[in-house]
């Protein structure tokens, strides 16, 4: 039954590719609200190849509040062209289209999305209610069985389970208790609170706790006929059934066109290819305020080209919606090409705590330097010496805002004092602090001397990927030389850059600042505490936390330990007010201690939008977490005007 269903779906997808907008012109605008579905789907329903809309939608679909999101009711049709730089970018579609069990909307609040509702008791017990009549894109029902399959047949399976329980589902090593209450209700519970659980489900790269059981069972040794499974394993040149299962079920990078999906568009192109076509999911669970099923746009066409030509191609009008691989310095070129090739270039704000931030390595191997890096006076002085206004004017055309590496005004947790903490230029104060830190002596060039008599020369290491970083560093080098600190830049390569920082060979690194600068108190403050190795200011402490004490070094600095304690307290905090208080304390300490040195934030990301494409906000935030780039702005509500 499933196979035959699938066949026409594939055929339908191919049909859509070639029919596009043409028939749309015939449909008078007024009938749209009544139709409620794409003309292409209505035709299939008429031909009896697809069940009517009422049977395809869940009983209670997700209604996008178009008025609240400042959107107009759209028309169906069109194909959205995107450019990507490598096959790995296939995963971006699951970020852009962003349908999650629970997810953020443009207001950055977690709400049920795929789920009809959820109940949470003290963050310890989560009960999920699935929408009645919700179906996968192949028409099979989406039920508790899909959750059970993931938990019992994948995580707890002796062979597949070698991957282990996902980290976000562990609280102090404790696994959740999983229960199927009824076919539409499942429950996860822990003895301690797990506030990270919902955040993980709503993340741009989310925790997927369900799988299409009806499809996956054919690859699972427990359910499949052994001979048939062996045959499939051999045909796919996989090493074992587990390898095949892993390959077929990939959610993040859905290159398997047969894998059932709950997203607005599903992949219809087998790999390898340079062009992937994502066809409309006729069972998608969202509707607009008038009851029209989303998405409006028929298909997404994603061309994979060399990332070097993406800006040029976009400027030539070859993409309808492009921000990835477009840099701020492409802006003037794009602006110039706008009229000729019919697009707008919006400047969205980037949601990072600091566009370019410096990370003094508190775990540096060199004992003299480590001592200095851990001296708060030294860190504060370096921060005070930076002329952020100059950086803003020279590199960002004055469009960014000078700030410490902290949350932006858009965050409900924002306070002026965080932004201005040691980030307003004051050379006298900086000099005074450096003198106090034991760097009073200078040589004939005016460069300060370390207590050992060496010149105070800091090498800042970069991952060598962005000229923007190098440009900013050049300015900072000049600012620091005014207080007698000499700076060199060493551009290396991503892997080596990380490795050296982790080992403590690096004194200071440059990278982007806080990943989520529009956070609210419900989101995890882990970035401000030594919790993971990639944190360049304290990689060894982070590794210690990551590995639960197996490797790395325990925190031996009271201020950092205090942050870690606060983070642990946040995990156990019961109320919103408590969480908020902890966030404020952590933000205060983080900026006051200058664990990282911020420059400017709220810089701009050019977003190229075809002038025919509607419902794309002119001003928004382009960031990975939490807005999932375009995800929370709901590309399923974007539509093409003639």
């Amino acid at each position, binding site marked *: 039954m499933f196979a035959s269903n699938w066949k026409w779906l594939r055929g339908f997808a191919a049909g859509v590719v070639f029919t596009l907008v043409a028939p749309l012109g015939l449909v008078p605008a007024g009938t749209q609200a009544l139709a409620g579905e794409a003309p292409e789907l209505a035709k299939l329903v008429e031909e009896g190849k697809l069940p009517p809309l009422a049977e395809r939608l869940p009983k209670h679909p997700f209604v996008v509040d178009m008025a609240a999101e400042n959107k107009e009711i759209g028309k169906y049709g069109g194909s959205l062209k995107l450019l990507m730089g490598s096959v790995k970018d296939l995963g971006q579609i699951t970020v852009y289209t962003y349908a999650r069990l629970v997810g953020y909307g443009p207001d950055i609040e977690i709400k049920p999305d795929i789920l009809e509702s959820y109940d949470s008791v003290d963050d310890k017990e989560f009960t999920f209610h699935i929408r009645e009549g919700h179906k996968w894109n192949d028409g099979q029902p989406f039920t508790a069985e899909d959750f059970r399959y993931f938990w019992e047949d994948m995580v707890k399976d002796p062979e597949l389970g070698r991957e282990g329980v996902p980290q976000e589902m562990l609280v102090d090593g404790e696994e959740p208790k999983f229960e199927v209450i009824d076919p539409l209700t499942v429950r996860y519970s822990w003895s301690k609170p797990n506030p990270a659980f919902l955040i993980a489900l709503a993340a741009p790269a989310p925790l997927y706790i369900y799988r299409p059981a009806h499809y996956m069972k054919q690859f699972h040794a427990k359910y499949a006929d052994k001979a048939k499974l062996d045959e499939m394993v051999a045909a796919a040149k996989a090493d074992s059934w587990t390898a095949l299962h892993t390959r077929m079920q990939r959610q993040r990078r859905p290159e398997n066109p047969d894998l059932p999906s709950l997203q607005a568009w599903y992949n219809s192109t087998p790999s390898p290819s*340079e062009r992937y076509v994502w066809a409309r999911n006729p069972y998608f669970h969202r509707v607009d305020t008038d009851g029209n099923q989303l998405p409006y746009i028929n298909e997404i066409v994603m061309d994979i080209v060399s990332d070097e030509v993406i800006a040029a191609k976009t400027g030539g009008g070859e993409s309808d919606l492009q921000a990835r691989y477009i840099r701020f310095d492409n802006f003037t070129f794009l602006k110039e090409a706008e009229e000729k090739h019919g697009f707008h270039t919006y400047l969205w704000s980037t949601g990072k705590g600091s566009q370019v931030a410096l990370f003094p390595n508190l775990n540096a191997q060199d004992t003299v330097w480590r001592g200095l890096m851990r001296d708060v006076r030294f860190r504060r002085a370096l921060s005070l010496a930076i002329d952020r206004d100059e950086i803003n004017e020279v590199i960002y055309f004055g469009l960014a805002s000078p700030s410490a590496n902290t949350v932006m005004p858009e965050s409900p947790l924002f306070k002026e004092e965080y932004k201005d903490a040691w980030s307003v230029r004051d050379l006298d104060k900086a000099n005074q602090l450096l003198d106090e830190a034991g760097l009073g002596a200078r040589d004939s060039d005016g460069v300060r001397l370390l207590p050992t008599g060496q010149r105070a020369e800091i090498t800042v290491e970069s991952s060598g990927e962005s000229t923007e970083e190098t440009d900013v560093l050049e300015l900072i080098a000049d600012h620091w030389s005014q207080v007698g600190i000499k700076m060199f830049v060493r551009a290396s390569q991503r892997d080596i850059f990380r490795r050296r920082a982790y080992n403590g060979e690096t004194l200071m690194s440059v990278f982007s600042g806080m990943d989520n600068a529009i956070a609210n108190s419900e989101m995890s403050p882990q970035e401000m505490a030594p919790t993971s190795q990639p944190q360049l200011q304290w990689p060894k402490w982070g590794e210690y936390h990551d590995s639960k004490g197996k490797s790395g070094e325990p925190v031996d600095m009271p201020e950092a330990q205090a942050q870690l304690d606060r983070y642990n307290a946040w995990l156990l905090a019961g109320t919103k007010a408590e969480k908020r208080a902890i966030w404020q304390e952590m933000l205060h300490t983080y900026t006051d201690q200058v664990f990282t040195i911020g420059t400017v934030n709220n810089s701009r990301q050019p977003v190229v939008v075809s002038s025919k494409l509607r419902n794309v906000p002119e001003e928004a935030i382009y960031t990975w977490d939490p807005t999932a780039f375009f995800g929370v702005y709901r590309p399923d509500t974007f539509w093409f005007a003639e």
Partner: protein
Amino acid sequence: MLGYIIKRALYMVPTLVLTSILIFTLIELPPGDYFESYITELLASGETVDPQKIEFLRQEYGFDLPAYERYFKWAFGLLQGDLGYSFEYQLPVSDVIGDRLWLTIIVTFFTIIFTWAIAFPIGIYSATRQYSWGDYGLTFLGLLGLATPNFLLALVMMYFAKEWFGTSIGGLYDSEYIGQPMSWGKFLSVLEHLWIPVIVIGTSGTAGMIRRVRANLLDELRKPYVTTARAKGMPEFRALMKYPFRMSLNFFIADIGGILPQVISGAEIVAIVLSLQTTGPLLITALQSQDMYLAGSFLMLLAFLTVIGTLISDIALAFLDPRIRLAGGVSR
């Protein structure tokens, strides 16, 4: 002759074994592996990674085995025609390379024809009219082609092709033909895009070729037999083509060995800038992300073709130039 060929063919075996060890070691040498560079890439875009999951993937792909075991697994796979698995593409390597191979061959084929078509006439002209204005002028043009950075030329030409002819930027055909079978429309689209890479890659090769034709031909032209031919009243063109030109082609036949691998690898950097769907960019990104079986197997393919190419050119030289003697006193 037959004995010579057999002997040479046998030499190929240890050469290839050695090459495979070298390739494997070189790819292994940089610290880290594919999964590590995968993690850093995720971090660069702000994602977090579950270290446990990466460990699982490492085991799943056999990366917990010692290097020599992995080498043997790979090498035996190669012997059976199994090129391994590409992590980046999540596909068998043969599937990844397959489609791109014939496009690369087309680009290189036209580039070589273009290079010859320009280089030979100019080379002959420069040799016969040494130190003339024409010689200097054409040589200058050739060297200009060599000196201009390819990627710059590529960018400039792409821009103007878009502005003047509306050719879409990058690629070897318009994007609507991706994944379509060959058709007249697709063929025309390929022709529309092909001339840019052909000219860009070609211009860098012509200068060298011109100089070599010129130098070799000059050597020949000074020899007494040419003077004799002229003295006997042989027409100038015939006196040039009959022997001196043919003799000057020695280097050209020796070059065939180099052409074979070039045909399937293409010009890597230019291909990236032009976003060509050829194998060059594939190899570079594979090396960058340490996608080792893709990189390794492809390099092995190149090594194999180099060895075969060298053999072919040696045999061809032996046939074409009677002055070349086969060593070791085997059959003449």
